[in-house]
């Protein structure tokens, strides 16, 4: 395997691409007890249109999440969770807009757990009955999200900001769309996007890297299969079609999501650089060390729940901030006004250096979290960038880039506000 040592970060990473096309990444952490493995595919809720073996498919919304649930079923009534549990391991999965991840963490029996993870994710087994039964469970999950203000406020925002991009549709789909899901559709999606070539295995802990690669070879085989090709028919202008969306729910205080629609940055180093520039721009504009934050906090327009950053999903990107506020409209106006000032006047050299030092330090600290590190490594790998190269990238960023970004993005016509009011005030 290919070994890279990152001196800046005191990390050693082993990498290999197997004959079957699977990328394996092992972050070796000597002296730690916990081991964590992520097995991911870059197939998420927005990928409902694709071609496979010369045929075009359009599958119902919510299928990626449904598939994630059903992959835990195995033939012969085997119970994957119980098998992990008998080894003291914890397993789970999540579905995002553009990625689905399966993972386990353990302190012992690592190799057996890894085998099991690879085995269950690569073994589709769906029956009419089990697929039908899952509807009840996912319906409850949809119901739970309907009561969660954080989910509702973002779904409303995405629905208002985008005209055709499927981020408009909740990750779980709807009660209606999930009724259209059949075992056949699930098998097709699995065949299209769960091929080794389309996946990544990322492991962190005190483990033997070559043994990990060997296990992946043994379980997944060496055959290389063609993956599905995603269709991205969505066309988006950067202007938002709807600037304001409001709803009432059982919440204590009015809450808001405020977003500025950005052009999609694509993948590769340039995209990641743009992402880091955007995060620094967010910091300069409304971060805790900004003059705007102090002013809004002292005026009582925001509180410590306020925060934000740059969010990207395959095909779209936005600068987002959120929090509780009695006057979200005033927050929006203040952010717009301050954005214009910064775009015109830029930020000071000293302030910029301090912000960079802080951002770099926070990223280094976050490497202590196995989960955050594994997740970031996977997400950046999908975007074709080596996450551990972030210190070098930070050093290259110039303050003019922050100014230019703010000038491009903080505009009235691509700004959207989603607010949820308490029921009583409605």
């Amino acid at each position, binding site marked *: 395997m290919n070994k890279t040592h990152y001196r800046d970060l005191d990390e050693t990473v082993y990498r290999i691409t197997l004959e079957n096309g699977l990328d394996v990444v092992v972050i070796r952490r000597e002296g730690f007890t916990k081991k964590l493995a992520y097995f991911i595919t870059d197939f998420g809720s927005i990928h409902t249109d694709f071609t496979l073996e010369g045929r075009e498919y359009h599958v119902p919304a919510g299928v990626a999440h449904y598939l994630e649930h059903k992959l835990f079923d195995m033939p012969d009534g085997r119970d994957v969770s119980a098998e992990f*549990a008998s080894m*003291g391991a914890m397993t789970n999965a999540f579905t995002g807009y553009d990625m689905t991840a399966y993972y386990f963490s353990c302190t*012992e029996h690592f190799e057996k757990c890894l085998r099991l993870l690879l085995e269950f994710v690569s073994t589709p087994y769906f029956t009419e009955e089990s697929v039908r039964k899952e509807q009840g469970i996912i319906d409850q999950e949809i119901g739970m999200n309907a009561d969660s203000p954080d989910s509702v406020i973002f779904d409303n925002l995405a629905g208002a900001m985008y005209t055709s991009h499927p981020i408009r549709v909740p990750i779980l789909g709807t009660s209606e769309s999930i009724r259209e899901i059949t075992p056949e559709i699930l098998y097709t999606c699995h065949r299209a996007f769960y091929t080794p070539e389309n996946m990544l295995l990322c492991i962190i802990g005190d483990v033997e890297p070559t043994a990990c690669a060997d296990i992946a070879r043994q379980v997944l085989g060496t055959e290389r299969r063609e993956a599905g090709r995603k269709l991205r028919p969505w066309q988006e202008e950067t202007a938002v079609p709807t600037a304001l969306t409001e709803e009432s729910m059982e919440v204590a205080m009015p809450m808001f999501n405020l977003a500025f629609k950005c052009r999609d940055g694509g993948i590769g180093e340039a995209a990641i650089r743009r992402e880091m520039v955007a995060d620094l721009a967010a910091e300069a504009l409304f971060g805790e060390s900004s003059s705007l934050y102090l002013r809004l906090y*002292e005026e009582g327009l925001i509180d410590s729940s306020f925060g934000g950053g740059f969010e990207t999903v395959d095909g779209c990107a936005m600068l987002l901030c959120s929090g509780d506020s009695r006057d979200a409209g005033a927050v929006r106006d203040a952010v717009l006004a301050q954005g214009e000032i910064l775009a015109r006047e830029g930020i000071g050299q000293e302030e910029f250096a301090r912000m960079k030092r802080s951002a770099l330090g926070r990223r280094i600290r976050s490497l202590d979290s196995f989960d955050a590190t594994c997740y970031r490594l996977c997400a950046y790998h999908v975007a074709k960038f080596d996450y551990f190269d972030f210190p070098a990238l930070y050093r290259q960023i110039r303050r003019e880039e922050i100014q230019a970004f703010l000038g491009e993005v903080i505009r009235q016509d691509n700004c959207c506000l989603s607010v949820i009011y308490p029921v009583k005030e409605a």
Partner: protein
Amino acid sequence: MTLIIGKELFTIEIIELFPNVTLRCFRDTRFKQGCLSFQLVGQMTAQDAAWRALLPSVLLRGTGRCPDLRTITQRLDTLYGASVSPLVRRVGDCQTTGLYCSFMDDRFALPGDRVLDPMTEFLGELLLDSPVEQEGFLPAFVESEKSNLISTIECERNDKRLYAQNRLLERMCAPDSFGLPRLGRPEQIRAIEPIALRRSYLDALQTNPIHIFYVGSAPAEEVARLLAPIVRGLSKKSVPVPPQSGLETGVPGELTEEMDVTQGKLCMGFTTPITNRTEEFAAMQVLNVLFGGGMTSKLFQNVREKLSLCYSIGSVYYSVKGVVTVSAGIDFDRKDCVREEILHQLDACCRGHISQTELTAAREALCSSLRATHDSPGSIEGYYATAALSGLGMTPEQYMHAVEAVKKEQVVSCARQMELHTTYFLRGESR
């Protein structure tokens, strides 16, 4: 005094900096960040809960050198993005108030630069150099943090599961300190004046024991040397924290509330005489995991997986007080059958219907999380700093050995000692 706990790989050095000012150090060079927590330890009471919850946020608003939030954040930015956050803990009868610092390890700093020294200095400033007006904290700071705290409390109802859980405990433990809301009540917070708040704080600095915890790469003597000037003269009139007491329960019964929600929340509270200070503690923990602690538990496997009666279900064991709660997200009309099924699963435990697989899974899950305790500064601080207050007299290794030795009969005996006390149900509004 220096005391070393644990003979294995990990040791905690306990240094009594001054009487009742205790520094616990966990030296570890594996991490990229260190943490330092400072806690004043008091009793959880209706009078004190609110000001203790408010205090840290007021301390974080400004110091002599950094007069506002912006200059504070700029200072933290210079310390490579260090963070200081409010630390308010409830551990059984105790409530603590203080600050929690996380900061990058010195080895990643620019050549010649240090993080721990200026971090400790800044912590001292935040604790002891708040701007003062007429003997009180600045009214503007106090007022805005009061309204922030009130909105934090009010926003607890946004998370319906947590809300239901809190309502249950409030009712079930009404005569006990455990029934008090962790952060006080909004009306108590509204009544806090800047002068009274500062007086309560200065008084606590003298009368409350102080617990400081450090995890990181520096040797204990160095941390002690940095902290000594800050804590010298504090805690002079304090007495040690009294031991934890048993739970006093309220009147048993059922409570239903209505809200505009799509999904109902059923929450059931059980009592048990077993606490973290009793012999059967490890067996009780195993029972909790086996009954409702995760995806392999009886509740998850039967109520959710087999019967599809809910999306979420799980149990929590509050070991300091001897309370177990079960909560489930359900359809409104399924309350009775879910309740029956939960009791049915507990009854199965009482009757010894526990498979070897279930028992192994529960023991392994607990051991696995105990083994990983030493893998992050946050979990190290959380485990030991809490254990010092809760009366749990075991290191993670000792705790693990106790769990490994648990037999099925002991688990059954624990199940038989659980008694249903209160049921709470949150449902949609009847129209």
